[in-house]
């Protein structure tokens, strides 16, 4: 654990405490293990990057040796909490004024000293070179600014879903996040610093500055300062947002008296920027001149960007640089300009972590030997500040960000992630069913829902670590952190990209991990698994007694009833906690009678009468009754039909979802009782893979590479997705190129209401891809 006790006694931290609103130990986290520093010093902001390792607890399961006599425990497996070291990237952004205090702080806390070099980029790097070398004793190694920018840009586009967004000032949600296109190249990056650079990026290493302009942020600032006697860039933008450009600019209607109809130029179009100021006998307000200048520069840059985009036939154009950096005013005028000049054919795209690109790139340059690009990385919601709301209309004072620090943390994922090859169109795939950023009603409900559930989560977290007296304190810290995140999301739903039920769940998992609650449900899962296993043989036997057609229906009902057992759903956890006798049979009775809310069972049954599937990929959900009594018999039937089955479960824990580690033990135990499973395992017709995820939801565009490979190799022609998190909150509308089956019970009354059903309504969605039968899956079908 990071011992932060030394902070208060440190003399330098006192000076920091005065100027910085966040406690420094929260800012420069994991500094004691930090290595590989990079720094990007811009005109006003410094971005510091370091690579560090985080030691945190992970829950592991280990099978008891059941053959040994001394294994007296009736438990299936033991749970142990182990320390694990993972890699994390830290990025911190602060005003240049704090450089010296920050460097002092780093120096005092940097235990690991085998780092000799700090990579530096940005216009201010040379200015602070001497200071950095003296304070940290590291050699400053300068890296090319543009190269760093592009490297950083590639990195965030690849690793952070919802990195890019379209800005729409007057829309319900200002930020419209883009779906992650697995193929990020080629694109155009328009970097608006003091000047403008237009760079065409074709691959990881291939990029070219195809053009630029000297009319950029420096022109706005410099000319603006001359015209308005206002010194600061932010103040100039503030002025501009209040001004009226029409008193300074000559419009088409000023020349024509109206529109220039013949060319389709509207009267409000600017014919000549500052065209009305060519007169000595008029005074112009600062606001109006600033606004006119802003329009002039934004339009000019937009026009050039469009000309270059057209020449190089590029439709993805990202804008960055200090002129843009989160300023709604400039994002709006640039967007307007791009729309005007391309008639909507090209969209202006902005990046959530635009300010960090240089620092990320510089860091990557220095870390090439670690091959950071070989890994997949994920934004850690617990440790990242998220996008600020900076709309000057909403809160003019919020722009004055002095004294605040902005952070981004990225975890190195153990597994490399990629698309499920069975997605019909990876570039248009959106995992989430409802975008809470745009749906205010739904947003309010879910934020309330997660807030209300917080007490229970805290209670369970404490209960999961009975031997640790300080667990209560950590759980309390978790509560504060997550409540604060929820508060942030209430005000800035766009802080981490599109707000979704998935992102709310994932944020909670990240926060739990942050405070060393790696698996609050481990004991509950263990108990449930133990109980359920005892009924496995009985359940299978009773199914075998049924006729074929009765059995198919019973199997589906079994999966659905099993899915009712879900501690993650509020309504269910209430019942389960108050009534432990709530059994499998009772669950079946709870289920809605057919016809279900979504019911394509008849088509499914028809399909089953046909030839067996080649291979089914099954994304499983919960531990206990769900996996053992619901899913396994269903899988067993598929195997008996001659269909290979790949069971995909979470890599890490999330709620009571069965993890890959647990499922391996469970499967072994079932195999010991069931020759069908035993044979399938040994013949490699039943395979367990991990999803690469630790989320109760499922993003089919970020799956373990091995899973994707197995799915392809096995010529998967059926994908089964089970549970509310994976089949309703996410993937409800996912289009696959093969047959798919989505099964879930709606265990949330609000959601049921929304979908037109009621509590315990059933979704049974069997889909065959549209188009000519077999065409889409031609590549997957053996000829």
């Amino acid at each position, binding site marked *: 654990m990071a011992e932060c006790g030394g902070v208060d006694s440190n003399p330098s931290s006192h000076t920091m405490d005065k100027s910085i609103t966040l406690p420094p130990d929260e800012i420069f986290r994991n500094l004691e293990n930090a290595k590989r520093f990079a720094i990007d010093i811009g*005109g006003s902001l410094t971005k510091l990057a370091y690579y560090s390792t985080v030691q945190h607890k992970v829950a592991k399961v280990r099978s008891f040796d059941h053959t040994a006599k001394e294994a007296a425990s009736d438990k299936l497996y033991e749970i142990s909490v182990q320390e694990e070291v993972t890699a994390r990237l830290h990025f911190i952004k602060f005003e240049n004024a704090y450089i010296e205090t920050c460097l002092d702080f780093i120096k005092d806390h940097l235990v690991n000293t085998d780092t000799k070099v700090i990579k530096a980029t940005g*216009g201010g790097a040379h200015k602070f070179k001497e200071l950095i070398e003296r304070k940290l004793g590291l050699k400053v190694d300068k890296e*090319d600014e*543009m*190269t760093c920018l592009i490297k950083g840009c590639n990195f965030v586009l690849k690793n952070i879903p919802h990195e890019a967004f379209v800005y729409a000032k007057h829309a319900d949600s200002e930020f419209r996040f883009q779906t992650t296109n697995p193929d990020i190249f080629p694109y155009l990056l328009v970097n608006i*610093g*003091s*000047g403008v*650079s237009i760079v065409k990026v074709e691959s990881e290493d291939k990029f070219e*500055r195809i*053009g630029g*302009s*000297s*009319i*950029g*942020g*420096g*022109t706005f*600032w*410099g*000319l603006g*300062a*001359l*015209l308005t006697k206002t*010194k600061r860039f932010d103040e100039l933008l503030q002025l501009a947002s209040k001004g009226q450009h029409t008193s*300074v*600019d*000559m419009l*088409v209607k*000023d*020349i*024509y*008296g*109206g529109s*220039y109809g*013949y*060319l389709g130029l509207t009267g409000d179009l*600017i*014919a*000549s*920027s*500052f*065209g*009305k*100021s*060519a*007169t*000595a006998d008029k005074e*112009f307000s600062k606001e109006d*001149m600033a606004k006119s200048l802003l329009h*002039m520069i934004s*339009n*000019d840059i937009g*026009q*050039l960007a469009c*000309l*270059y985009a*057209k*020449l190089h036939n590029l439709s993805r154009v990202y804008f960055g640089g200090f002129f843009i950096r989160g300023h709604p005013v400039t994002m709006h005028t640039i967007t307007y300009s791009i729309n005007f*000049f391309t008639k909507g054919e090209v969209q202006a795209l902005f990046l959530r972590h635009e300010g960090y690109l240089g620092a990320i790139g510089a860091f990557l340059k220095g870390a090439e030997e670690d091959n950071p690009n070989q890994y997949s990385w994920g934004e850690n919601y617990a440790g990242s500040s998220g996008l600020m709301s900076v709309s000057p209309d909403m809160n003019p004072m919020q722009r004055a960000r002095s004294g605040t620090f902005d952070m981004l943390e990225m975890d190195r994922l153990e597994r490399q992630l990629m698309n499920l090859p069975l997605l019909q169109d990876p570039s248009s795939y959106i995992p989430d069913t409802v975008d809470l950023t745009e749906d205010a009603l739904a947003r309010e409900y879910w934020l309330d829902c997660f807030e209300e559930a917080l007490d229970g989560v805290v209670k369970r977290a404490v209960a999961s670590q009975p031997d640790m007296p300080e667990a209560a304190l950590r759980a309390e810290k978790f509560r504060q952190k997550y409540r604060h995140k929820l508060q942030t999301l209430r005000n800035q739903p766009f802080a981490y990209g599109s707000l979704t039920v998935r992102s709310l769940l994932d944020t909670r998992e990240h926060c739990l991990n942050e405070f060393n609650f790696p698996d609050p449900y481990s004991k509950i899962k263990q108990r449930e698994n133990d109980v359920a296993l005892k009924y496995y043989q009985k359940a299978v036997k009773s199914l075998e007694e049924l006729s074929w057609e009765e059995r198919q229906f019973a199997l589906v009902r079994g999966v659905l009833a099993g899915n009712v057992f879900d501690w993650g759903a509020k309504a269910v956890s209430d019942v389960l906690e108050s009534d432990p006798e709530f059994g499998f049979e009772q669950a079946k009775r709870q289920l809605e009678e057919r016809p279900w809310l979504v019911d394509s069972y008849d088509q499914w049954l028809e399909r089953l009468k046909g030839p067996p599937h080649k291979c089914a990929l099954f994304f499983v959900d919960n531990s206990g009754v769900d996996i053992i009594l619901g899913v396994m018999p269903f899988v067993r039937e598929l195997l008996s039909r001659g269909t290979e089955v790949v069971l995909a479960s979470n890599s890490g824990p999330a709620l009571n979802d069965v993890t890959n580690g647990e499922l391996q033990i469970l499967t072994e135990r079932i195999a010991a009782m069931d020759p069908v499973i035993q044979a399938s395992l040994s013949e490699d017709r039943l395979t367990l893979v991990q999803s690469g995820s630790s989320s109760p939801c499922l993003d089919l565009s970020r799956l373990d590479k091995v899973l994707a490979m197995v799915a392809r190799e096995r010529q998967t022609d059926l994908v089964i997705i089970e549970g509310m998190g994976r089949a309703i909150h996410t993937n409800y509308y996912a289009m696959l190129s093969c047959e798919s089956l989505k099964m879930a019970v709606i265990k949330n009354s609000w959601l049921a209401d929304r979908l037109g059903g009621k509590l315990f309504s059933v979704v049974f969605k069997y889909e065959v891809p549209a188009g000519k039968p077999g065409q889409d899956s031609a590549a997957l079908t053996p000829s």
Partner: protein
Amino acid sequence: MKLITEKKPAFPWFGMDIGGTLVKLVYFEPVDITAEEEQEEVENLKSIRRYLTSNVAYGKTGVRDVHLELRNLTMCGRTGNLHFIRFPTQAMPRFIQMGRDKNFSSLHTTLCATGGGAYKFENDFRTMADLELLKLDELDCLIRGLLFVDRVGFNGHPECYYFQNPSDTQSCVKKPCTLDNPFPMLLVNIGSGVSILAVYSENNYKRVTGTSLGGGTFLGLCCLLTGCETFEEALEMASKGDSTNVDKLVKDIYGGDYERFGLQGSAVASSFGHMMSKEKRDSISKEDLARATLVTITNNIGSIARMCAVNEKIERVVFVGNFLRINTVSTKLLAYAMDFWSKGQLRALFLEHEGYFGAVGALMELLKTTEDP
């Protein structure tokens, strides 16, 4: 003889282009007036002719560009001199007033006008001076006028010119040339704002794009930054200034060339970039500011024009418009920019009658309309 005169429009022959900043007026002064004609000529027609041809300045702000006069020109079967006159659009009400005072409407001539002002002031002409304007599209007029003037030449010399060795300030010289085979051409008209046209023939052209950063922006910003009042004053100051005191160059940032991207140290990285610093703002001269404004606007137009030329696959770029009047700083800069950034692929061409083609085109429309009834 009588038949022909009947087909010709009545004198006086005017063509007018009312822009955002300047009104351009061309006046055809017939020199082949017969004694009979002279006798029939009404008094106010004579007085208009005398007033226009015997003065070089009209009121406080009207100017006749004597050096541009096209002499012994034959138009519509008549020989005469074509005079080029300009005055600020702000003086338009006074001009209309004068039209009324001189009883212009009694002359039964058609007043052909183009430019935005033809629309904006149409009603004023009608109500104040009892004059009906024949409104013409400015781009049609521009192209027609340009092709005509190029065809008839500039008193025996070519109308068109370019700069030889544009990349070398020492040996850069103005060279006359002809637009024998003018199509396709990219026509960049720099008035208050800028219009860029791709012209494939006299009647086949499209407006590719435009920018609001034009002559009006140069003058407007100069007035705000230096307190100057006229284009001439602004240019005079600009000719004495040094823009590198105002602009941040590549070498100011990188200490030299930015080799990774092949940018020369002397290239402007950020227009007005030095002005972000208070000390530099406090020490800067008006001349430097005027020069920087001129260079910024000119380079930007050059940059957009060049991109359009590449996108439209046109190698000949013709720059016109009154922004280029007495403005060799800009013409040379444009010539340099076209040559340098296109590695010699593009050639910048200029025309002596810079801003008057719209007005000439309007006059030609007058002669055309009355020719074919």
